[in-house]
């Protein structure tokens, strides 16, 4: 079936099987490999992207269900060549090691701050509790999100 959706503002149309999962549509059909694909069982959060602004585990949503909706992936965080503060925070605070969990962490981190600009450590940890990181021990991820909260306009570094 033919499916169209907006991904990071651009209309994307492909003919896919109805069983195609959104994560595969985004990675294989739209060619945006920033969104990662890990556990496949809605447990790890590597595949988190936004559907109409709401973080969603894209391994557990059909592309067909996303048709007509607005998708934002990690590639959509950067604006006009400037990194989003959440991205900058992960650089400043060493918020990643292997980087596999990072796209999902960034999308959820940005969403946490959009709803709660000054979250406590506990609120951040609860917010990312559906996402696994096997490297950092989470400490630096929490610090990175805090850094972004403290520097809301600090997106001066070129991407």
């Amino acid at each position, binding site marked *: *079936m033919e499916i169209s959706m907006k991904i990071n503002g651009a209309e994307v149309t492909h003919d896919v099987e*109805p*069983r195609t999962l959104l994560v595969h549509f985004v990675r294989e059909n739209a060619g945006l490999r920033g969104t990662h694909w890990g556990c496949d069982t*809605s447990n790890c959060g590597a595949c988190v992207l936004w559907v109409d602004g709401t973080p969603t*585990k894209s391994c557990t*949503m*059909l592309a067909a269900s996303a048709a007509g909706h607005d998708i934002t992936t990690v590639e959509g965080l950067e604006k006009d060549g400037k990194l989003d503060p959440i991205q900058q925070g992960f650089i400043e605070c060493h918020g990643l090691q292997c980087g596999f969990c990072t796209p999902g962490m960034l999308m959820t981190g940005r969403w946490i701050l959009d709803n709660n600009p000054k979250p406590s450590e506990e609120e951040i940890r*609860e917010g990312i*509790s*559906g996402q696994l990181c096997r490297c950092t021990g989470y400490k630096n991820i929490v610090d990175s999100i805090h850094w972004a909260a403290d520097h809301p306009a600090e997106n001066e570094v070129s991407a």
Partner: protein
Amino acid sequence: MQTPAPVDYVRATSVADALSLLQQHGDEARLLAGGHSLLPMMKLRLARPEILVDINDLDELRGIRIDGNEIVVGAMVTHAEILNSPILFEHYPIFREAEKVIADPIVRNKGTMGGSMCQADPAEDLSAVGAALRGTVVIQNAEGRRTVAMREFHEGPYETKVADGEILVEVRYPILPGSGSAYEKVERRSGDWAVCAAGACVTISGGVFSSVGIGIGAVNAEHFTAVDAEAFLVGKEPTAENIATAAQMAADSCDPSADQRGPADYKKHLAMELTKRALTRAAAAAKGA
């Protein structure tokens, strides 16, 4: 890579449209709500529908509202919406306490009331909440609507009164003025299904329990509740001793099985302890306590 087997997909435009699609395709069709139980089951080939009828566009199934002396929660209301609902929090804090420990924030953005009810997992937290609150489920088919008490809704694990060709449209909870409610759950790790969970909703007048609702999940309690323990408490003072007796009766009525979440005697102990804690907090929160 886990992918569902080939399947057709259609988006319903209204409840009437969804019902006619279901009728047209019989037991080969499945409704797709949040998909957070159905898609994993399709990946594992535990479900093999031929066609998915997506009901995410049906705004008539959304919203939380008060209707007379009931709170009505639409089938497509998400866990996140239940968690953040001021109406539900005002009347029934048990919803917020339960939702905080259902899955994780991202899953809660997708999973729905209707999907949770119809999935009918023996550990479904909203089933225990619904039993404690004595909710009713509204089911629609081609002939019209009917109402089923939450306490008669489950036919067994993963089986409910919703038949092929039917849609759960909403769940209704009677408002009990002055009630207190609470939820307790033990899980192995953050976001996991319950090893055991218990909820309570009580009213107190003249210093004694005037109504008692107990909901118990994941330990094979009949209809997610414990009617003997409830009956024991009505008319009695909310003392620690009475509550402990009722909690033990509740645990005795459960029949948990051992699995990777723990041995049966541990789960029974949890049923007693969590029922006791939920009743104690609910009683303390009830007006007139």
